[in-house]
């Protein structure tokens, strides 16, 4: 008989490293940020947006010029050391006007997005939360609003309300929230049925915890992505309305009215078109790049 030595009954060596969590523990947003940072295009978009916003905020503050001050002896000047972007037909400093315009356009975009967010999330949330008949009714209503050509409605509305920043925002928001509401509702409905919610529930999580920790963060992803598309759309709508003469009130500047003014004079005063177009395109481009990046970063399927 073989002797079984005591040595053979040593407890196994603890292999603690196998269970260790090597990667740093990241919550949803930190994880998304990590992935977003790797996306060069999206980061470029984000940086450009930050830079442009800083200019929009500070450039007019630090300039001796005001956007409405006319210098009738210095009209249509080419860009120079005194006027970085030249002057317009009234001798107004284009540098200040472009950044003021950026301010106004971003403001329109952001407020429109905020309205979208509030109305859309509430509507979509309520619709998904109550479900059943309420949901069915609210969905029908959305379907109807959705098929109204919003730009034409915006035009009618502005003709009624009169031109101005408020009208433009309202006209956009009145039909713009629908997409957001649809997205939020869809996402909520899917999430309600997901295993992790079930798991949380079976582990005894209280409803508020489920909503706070599981539903909202997951919906927020969709919402944030959507916002990065709403802002440029609203800015675009503003420029379109400016083109057909329903934009903001003079002498205020917006990128839209700078663009449409510039487009009529482009052959003779190219600088009045060039600079607003550059800023406008950069904003739209950046928002789109950032939006694409965010979508990839926030998409749970992409988590590895």
């Amino acid at each position, binding site marked *: 008989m073989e002797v079984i030595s005591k040595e053979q009954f040593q407890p196994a060596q603890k292999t603690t490293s196998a269970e260790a969590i090597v990667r740093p523990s990241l919550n949803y947003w930190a994880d998304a940020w990590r992935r977003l940072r790797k996306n060069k295009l999206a980061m470029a978009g984000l940086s450009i947006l930050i830079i442009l916003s800083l200019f929009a905020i500070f450039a007019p503050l630090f300039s001796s010029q005001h956007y409405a001050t006319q210098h009738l002896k210095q009209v*249509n000047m080419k860009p120079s050391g005194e006027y970085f972007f030249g002057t317009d*037909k*009234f001798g107004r400093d284009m540098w200040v006007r472009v950044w003021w315009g950026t301010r106004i356009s971003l403001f329109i975009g952001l407020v429109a997005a905020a309205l979208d967010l509030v109305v859309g999330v509430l509507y979509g949330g309520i619709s998904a939360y109550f479900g059943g008949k309420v949901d069915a009714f609210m969905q029908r209503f959305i379907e109807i609003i959705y098929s109204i050509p919003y730009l034409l409605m915006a035009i009618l509305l502005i*003709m009624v309300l009169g031109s101005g920043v408020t009208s433009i925002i309202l006209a956009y928001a009145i039909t713009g929230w629908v997409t957001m509401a649809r997205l939020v509702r869809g996402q909520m409905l899917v999430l309600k049925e997901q295993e992790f919610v079930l798991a949380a529930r079976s582990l005894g999580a209280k409803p508020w915890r489920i909503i706070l920790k599981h539903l909202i963060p997951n919906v927020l992803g969709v919402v944030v992505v959507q916002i990065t598309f709403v802002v440029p759309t609203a800015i675009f709508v503003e420029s379109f309305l400016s083109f057909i003469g329903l934009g903001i009130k*003079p*002498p205020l500047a917006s990128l839209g009215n700078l663009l449409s003014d510039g487009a009529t004079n482009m*052959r003779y005063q190219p600088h009045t078109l060039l600079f607003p177009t550059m800023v406008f395109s950069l904003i739209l481009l950046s928002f789109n790049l950032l939006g694409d990046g965010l979508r990839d970063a926030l998409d749970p399927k992409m988590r590895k």
Partner: protein
Amino acid sequence: MKLRKIFSTALVISLIGACLAACGGKTGSGSKDELVINYRADPPALDVSKAESSAAFTVLGAISEGLYRLDKNMKPQPALAAAMPDVSKDGLTYTIKLRDGVQWADGTPVTANDFVYSYQRTLDPKMAATYAFVIAWIKGGDAVTAAKTPADVETAKKNLGVKAINDKTLEITLDHPIPFFTSMLAFLNFYPQKKDFVEPLGDKSGADFDKVIGAGPYKLTKWDHDQTLVLEKNDKYWDKANVKLKKITLNIVKDTTTGLNLYETGASDVAEIQGDQMTAYKGKPDLVVRSELTTGYINFQFKKVPAFANKKVREAFSMAVDRQALVDTAIKNGSVAATAYVPNGNSDGNGQEFRKVVGDLIPKYDPAKAKQLLQDGLKEAGLSAMPKLSIISDDKDTDKNIIEFLVSQWQQNLGVTVEANPMPHKNRLEKELSKQYDIVNTRWGADYNDPMTWLDMYVAGGSFNTQDWTGPENDKYTKLVKDAQIEQDLKKRSDLMVEAEKLLMSESAVMPLYFRSTPFVVNPKLKDMVMPPYGPDFEFKWAHFQ
């Protein structure tokens, strides 16, 4: 595989397209007797009674003709009429012989009855014709427009002071003497209408190329709405020997940038331009500026803003605006700074130019004096400062530029803040006529070439006295205008109107800004196309290529 096929087909199509484009001929005027022009709008109804826009005046003026036609000096020349009218001593009765052999484009003769029918139709309240008021200068005209029942209308029409003595002789009796009435007979709404052509069409009259007939130098042979109108020489026209163009094509082009592009590629002989486009053409033979009998002006509402009831305050606002800079920077279309209310080129009703008779009546641009006047005026009115003001205006580019400019001038020169409030034309018009404004940027174009079309606007209770100008000065003004309306002696009449305008301006009751012009580029080889200062945009009859 299928996809590849689609792609290759598409490639071929685009290549063919590019080739067609490269090889495609220019539509511009190759031959010497065809004119191609850009036109800014599709005309509304081409109906003599309903015509009210310059687009309708332009096209109808080419298709048809009146008793007289204005030549390039705006003097009436016999057209369908054989000679100048016989006017009775009291200036009320006009007897006119028609030219022999004048006929409609379908070969039927034009008779005196066609004129009687035309005037009766225009006055008919059912037509609600905008320019019925000029026809209503004929005796009994107002009775027709005011008639309530169809029977009343018929009776009133019978009593109208226009008669066909025979097929060739027309007699018109006026309500009151009108010194410029012969010129009015050249105005579009006084053209004849062919009853058995117009009547069956009902409200479709003038809706298409085959629903309009005239007796003029050209006839309309094609009308693709919002795209193209084609005019061809009318062989039945009495003066066809002097009509040189075979064909005129009007392409509807609403964007001046595209319009100029078309001109520069030779696809058009005439294009309306604006702003910097005009600057670029300065000094070139292509540039033609049409000066119009149109004044752009500002009105202040005296009741809504009591400060404006003070003359010094109004004067201050007027003096604080550099009108030369306004036309040079904000308007930039060849318009000139206003020197009074009645525009340059307007007749004084006595054979002279009104503006030259009266002279310059606008206070000189003087910011310092303006500021002082404002202080004095406010003190007189017992106010410490101007209230918050807003200026309403149309929302077209030029108007927006004008109010941007004015707001800046008042801010910089007077320290007064005025909010710019552009709005659709109709809203502005309604607010203006219902007196719901502080300051309004508006304009007026002459209906006829006489100072009266301007001066009768501000009489007491007049519907255009929207600023509510009242008081002893207005009473005096009203008396001057009313006296001029009945004055038979042309010299005295002119003097009365001169006095009236001087009073209007010394009171600063309106604030004229500019006399409007429109710049065009025109093929330098095109000669004798007239651009009249009011009514139609173009007079094509004598146009020809060199």
